[in-house]
């Protein structure tokens, strides 16, 4: 992850995402978009635009793929990478 990013933020694994778009529809701030790009499976994956996330978790809970979406919440403290 990008350590310089501002918390909270949503991270979507572009390779795992199946492009259903549920997270985009569920985001109250409209900060998730369907990418123009295709992933290796041929899906237009979802992307976080980079700012505006309020850490509501909607994208996480509406996403059917267990490891596609990770949301780092406001109180997240990055662990030291060993």
């Amino acid at each position: 992850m990008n350590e310089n990013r501002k918390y909270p933020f949503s991270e979507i694994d572009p390779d795992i995402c199946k492009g259903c778009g549920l997270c985009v529809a569920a985001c109250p701030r409209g900060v998730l978009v369907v990418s123009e790009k295709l992933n290796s499976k041929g899906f237009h994956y979802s992307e976080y635009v980079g700012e505006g996330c309020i850490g509501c978790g909607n994208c996480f809970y509406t996403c059917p793929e267990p490891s596609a979406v990770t949301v780092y919440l406001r109180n997240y403290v990055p662990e030291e990478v060993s």
Partner: protein
Amino acid sequence: MIMAQKTVLRKPLGFIDVYKHKPGAEKDRTHYCPGCGHGILHKLIAEALEDFDIVDRTIVISPVGCSVFAYYYFHTGNLQVPHGRAPAVATSVSRANPDSIVISYQGDGDLAAIGGNNILQAANRGENMVVFFVNNAIYGMTGGQMAPTTLEGQKTTTTPYGRNVKTDGYPIQVCEIINQLTAPVYVVRTSLHDMPNIRKTRAAVRKAIQNTRDKKGFSFVEVLSMCPSGWKMDSVPAQKWIEENMIPRFPLDTFRDISEDTSAIERPVPVMDPEEVKRILEYTALSDSNLEKNPDAAFDRVAVRIAGFGGQGIMSTGIALANVGMEYGYNVSWLPSYGPEMRGGTANCSVKIQADTIGASECTEPNMVIAMNQPSLEKFEKILVPGGALIYNTTLIDIEPSRTDLKVYPIPITGIADELGDTRVQSMVNVGAFAAVTGMFDPGEIENLMPSLFKGKSGEVMKLNEKAVRKGYEYVKENFS
């Protein structure tokens, strides 16, 4: 509450890190289609298991349907089971592991069609389990056929003209049916069609899993869920379709929530200690006697057919004779009339008592018949071997036997019992008569055996039966010696 403590929302630890049971290369993602509701529900379950720290104690039952591969994902004990039978399997899994959290995960075809009875009965028994019922109004796995929950007019691959309620029936409202039963503690229907409802579903999932953890019994969570592939639409319109079409038919509601007022189920601990097993089976009370056989007995082996009306002590006469024979160390067998013979008001049984191993247990060529009524005399005197003994009940039989090559013992069996004040003791009159005719048993020994023959009966009953044995024995000795 727990939510507030989270600092990151990521793949919950209720899921297996790498889906090792999943064949092929893609062990990092599910087999579910884009936008499928199963994945959302899976995540809510896996998150709850992690949050309650019960992943280790959980056992997931995977059904047949799209979630047949649920076992790929949950980092729990897993059983994959036949179509519709998840609640039956979950029942015995829960009984076997009463401290575990047993999850039956099922779709609508599995649960409401082929497994309809299994879900009702598990619910009715109040089994300690949680059932997650994914209702997407279609058979997903097999390619979009009609489900019991398919809506009126809905087109599927087996309702190409739309579901016609006149021929296909109505969509089944499962929560409403489950709610008719007394035992369930929690019955709820939620939906995945938007965020507020996904959050309500999350709350229901957690509540239901907590109920199971706390052994409160049967919790049922129906979840209206998208099947974009089966419905042939995109994911977001599929959510809209739930709201507009499914919810009117399947209203969202908490039908029941009585877990607070329900006490925890307690299951006994099985007794496995061999000494304790022997004590409970009363090994010390088993027959271990080997009474001395009478070397001068008129019979050294008996194949006796005992017959009469039901209620004349036919079966109990036979069982008593077999029991006494066993005490003398004989091999014994007792076979009740059985099958078509039982009809027509007559009952009969075959008893064999002999020193060597018994072959056929049915006395097709008996050397003794005890006939308690006329039809029995007529039927069974014919099959006696020549020279065989025929004991018959003159109280109820006023004809003579037709054969002349038999030893006959006409005895007023019912009359003797009546004189003793209880018709029911005629079986013991028979036992006494048998002892006298065969010489195989000593009536005194039979009296000694009374406590084991009439276990749990009062001393008075035993006294009366002793008298009956004695009377039967004496009648033969006095009249036929």
